[in-house]
């Protein structure tokens, strides 16, 4: 656990949260810095880019969602929202703006570290621009548009393939219903979350060993889906 995982910035105005998280994150291998305000965080990121940002939505000087938007104007670093706001609409907005994941307070450090690992790994996979995606029994060959489960080819409809592709492209990350709808049906559509649910059920039938308790295509209730890449 003493490997160097890079720099991590906690943006939270509650000092006790920073105090409680710092030791464990440091022990896990991150160099931890903290900012109590949105502007401070943006200035710190501009000078010294972080490898991971943990962001609270309720900041004293600006809304955390604006911080996400500002970071995304120039940086692609993983952002994990850690917030006490449990309104689904807040989560969806944060994710639509480009946050990688959303974790509710309170959270144990074990889960938080797992989420951080998943997001970082998903990014690595995505940005290595490999023509193949491989996780567990699932294998995707993007140029050939071939999907294999346990080495056997699975036939997907074009929409099922689009759905799988966007989830694989954001492996480990939550993809909102809206993002899926735009990727699969296009922006000029009246498709809604129900369409996504139906399509997801079809995809699970073909890919999951046990479609009723999936361990690959995970549901984020009320928000969207995630392709698991956690061991």
């Amino acid at each position, binding site marked *: 656990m003493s490997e160097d995982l890079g720099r991590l910035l906690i943006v939270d105005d509650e000092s006790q949260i920073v105090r*409680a998280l710092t030791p464990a994150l440091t*022990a*896990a291998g991150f160099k931890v810095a903290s900012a109590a305000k949105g502007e401070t965080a943006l200035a710190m990121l501009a000078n010294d880019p972080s490898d991971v940002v943990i962001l609270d939505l309720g900041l*004293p000087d600006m809304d955390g969602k604006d911080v996400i938007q500002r970071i995304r104007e120039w940086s692609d670093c993983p952002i994990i929202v850690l917030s006490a*706001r449990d309104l689904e609409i807040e989560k969806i907005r944060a994710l639509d703006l480009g946050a990688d994941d959303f974790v509710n*307070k*309170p959270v144990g450090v074990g889960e*938080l570290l797992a989420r951080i690992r998943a997001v970082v790994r998903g990014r690595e996979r995505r940005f290595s621009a490999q023509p193949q995606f491989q996780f567990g029994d699932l294998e995707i060959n993007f140029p050939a548009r071939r999907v294999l489960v346990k080495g056997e080819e699975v036939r997907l409809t074009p929409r099922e393939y689009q759905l799988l592709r966007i989830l694989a492209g954001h492996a480990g990350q939550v993809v909102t219903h809206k993002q899926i709808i735009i990727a699969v049906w296009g922006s000029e559509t009246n498709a809604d979350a129900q369409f996504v649910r139906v399509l997801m059920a079809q995809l699970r039938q073909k890919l999951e060993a046990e479609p009723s308790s999936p361990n690959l295509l995970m549901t984020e209730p009320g928000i969207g889906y995630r392709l698991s890449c956690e061991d």
Partner: protein
Amino acid sequence: MPVLRAATLPRRLLLSPSWIVRLNAPGRYALALAVVMASWSAAQILSQLTSSNRISGVLLAGVLVTSYLVGSGPGYAAAIVSFLIYNFYLGASIVGVAAYRAEDILLLVTFPVVAFLMGNLTGRLRDETKRTDIRQRMTAVLFEGTREFSACDDAAFIRVRLADYLAAAAQGQAFVLEDEVLCTGGGAELTPMVMSAAQALAQEASGEARSIEAAGWRVRRLSGAGVAGWRADPAPGPQEEDLLQILADAGAAAMTRAQMAAGKAGAEARARTEDLRNSLLSSISHDLRTPLAAVLASATSLQQFGDKFDAKTRQDLIATIQEEAERLNAFVTNLLHMTRLESGALDAHSAAFDLAEVIDRTRRRFERLRAHWKISFAPGEGAGLAVGDPVLFQVALANVLENAIRYSPPQSNISLSSALEEGAVVVRVADEGPGVEASELPRLFEKFYRGASAKRTPGTGLGLSIVRGVMHGMGGQAEAALRTDAKSGLVLSLTLPAAERHEEAV
């Protein structure tokens, strides 16, 4: 309520004087007779003066005047009477009917023809004038009505006034029926038949404006909901009917607008309540979850990495758990106090107590939990003992301190002081935060009220309302003021009665 004005526009057509116009039928005939008599008298005088018996012209003039003044009917009568008089006159001067001359035969024909033509012309002019008058009056009422409707936001009031205006415009009776509420104007009394026709029309599914006739009433379905009805006397012509419909429709539009405005206001009020509830819920969840998050993160850190941490880190995490648990407890206690205040179950045990000791204890607890703020205390001369409930006073003071810390920057000073003023002990807490607008000061102690500058800082708006609640509960006061020295910030003062010196401190 403005008085309905009748139209007083200048007459376009100068016709008969108004008293003649208002005459009833016998009166008109009497007038005709009088005119004939007058012309006959004039003819007599004329024939005496000129020694001529050519008086037919004067009589003809009488017929002309009669027809002009009172219409064709009395005109015919005047023609007949004049002709008879003329005959009588001739009979008296020249013996025998055979003595008629061609001129007389001509007169026999001329008199009624003149009377007919003249009366007809006059009658038409008079009718036209009457219509113009009615239309002018209606236009004035319509103008007055729409002006009043547009200035009014109360649908019920517009309904009442619409009935009045319709009655005034029709110069008869009118009613407006909407949602089973009946408003009448001009002393209207509705027969069951009219009433049921109106109700049937009001319940028609299509919201189209249309009119029906029922027992002399014109009943119009209004565009929004309900119906308006009127009965005019005399029955109005099509143009007048149009004006009445326009008036009814203008009233209906005003009622719809007023109802929509009321609905909008209601929806806005509901949205505000909803907003308040949402922000309260999210504040409470934030205030509960933040300490919980620190506790859970610290505990799981110790569990997972405990053996990797040095002793200082472990100690720090344990301290975080303890402090955050205390903070959680304080928050729950506050919610409890709020509930007790709400239900009136606050139980104050007032006695003389050592104020300085309670203040110092509270201050030290805060210094430990909130090491980033410097809290100083300057006890005042003679302000040692106060009468109140020490436990509740500590609750109030803790809330005031929490409030000061919440809104002032770390490393700033929070100054506590006490003073004896006019038999009361005043404890003041001054912070170096941004303060509030002077206009907001009286509202700071209201439940759920949060200063305009506090929107970014999480909070429930409960703290200071609890302060005021418990201070009042033990006979004290809580007030807010702005700092009067050079610094910005708020000064909150808690006042309790001072204890007599001989009383024993508890």
